[in-house]
C-alpha cells in the first residue's frame, strides 16, 4: 500500500526536482539573460512548491513561513533584473 508519505517522497518530490533541473538547463543554455532570469524565477517558484511539499512531508508547518517570504519577495529580483536590463540597453 502506497502511503501518502511515500507518494510524496517518490513521486511528487522527484517530479519537482526534475522540473527544477530542467529549468536549470534553460538557465544554463540561456541564450539571453532574460531567459536566465525567467528560469531563475521559475526555479524559485518551483522552490516554493518543493518547500510546501517538504513541509507537508516532514509535518513542519513552520516551513511554510519560508514559502511566504519567497512568494512575497522573489519577484523583486526579477523586477530588478528587468529594470536594469532595460537600463543597460540605454547606455
Amino acid at each position: 500500500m502506497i502511503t501518502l508519505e511515500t507518494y510524496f517522497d517518490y513521486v511528487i518530490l522527484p517530479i519537482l526536482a526534475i522540473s527544477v533541473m530542467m529549468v536549470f538547463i534553460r538557465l544554463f543554455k540561456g541564450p539571453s539573460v532574460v531567459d536566465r532570469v525567467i528560469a531563475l524565477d521559475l526555479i524559485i517558484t518551483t522552490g516554493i512548491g518543493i518547500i510546501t511539499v517538504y513541509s507537508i512531508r516532514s509535518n513542519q508547518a513552520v516551513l511554510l513561513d519560508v514559502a511566504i517570504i519567497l512568494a512575497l519577495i522573489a519577484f523583486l529580483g526579477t523586477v530588478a533584473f528587468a529594470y536594469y536590463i532595460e537600463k543597460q540597453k540605454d547606455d
Partner: protein
Amino acid sequence: MKSAILQTATRYLLPILLLFSFFLLLRGHYYPGGGFVGGLVAAIAFVLHSFANGTANTMKILRYKPLSLIPIGLAISTLSVVAPLLFGLPPMTGLWFEEPIPVIGMIGSALFFDLGVYLVVIGVVLTILFTIALEQ
C-alpha cells in the same frame, strides 16, 4: 522607465510587505522570523516602491533619510542591552514585564532589542540601495 502596472501593484504590496515585516518582527521569539528578516522585508518593500515610483518618491514617503534610522535603531537596541545594568544585572540580560500583553505576547527587553535591529536593518538596506540608486 516606469511601469503603470508595477506602480499600481506596489500600492498594495507596500503595505502588505510592511505588515508582514511587523509580523515577522513580533513573532520572532516564537516562530521563525525576528528583527533581521523583518527589517529586510520592510526594506524590500521600500525598495520595490522605489523601483516602481523612483527613489526620489520613495524618499518622500519616508520623509527622513534612511540613514537617520540607523542611530535610532542602534540607540534602542543598545539601551535595551545596557538597561539591565541599572538593576545590577549584566548587559543583555532579558528583562520582562510580569504580565503578557495581548497579541504580542510577553514584552521584554528582547523585543526592544529586536525592534532596534529591525530599524537598523531597514536603515542600512535603504541607505545602501537608495544611495546607489540616486547616484545613477
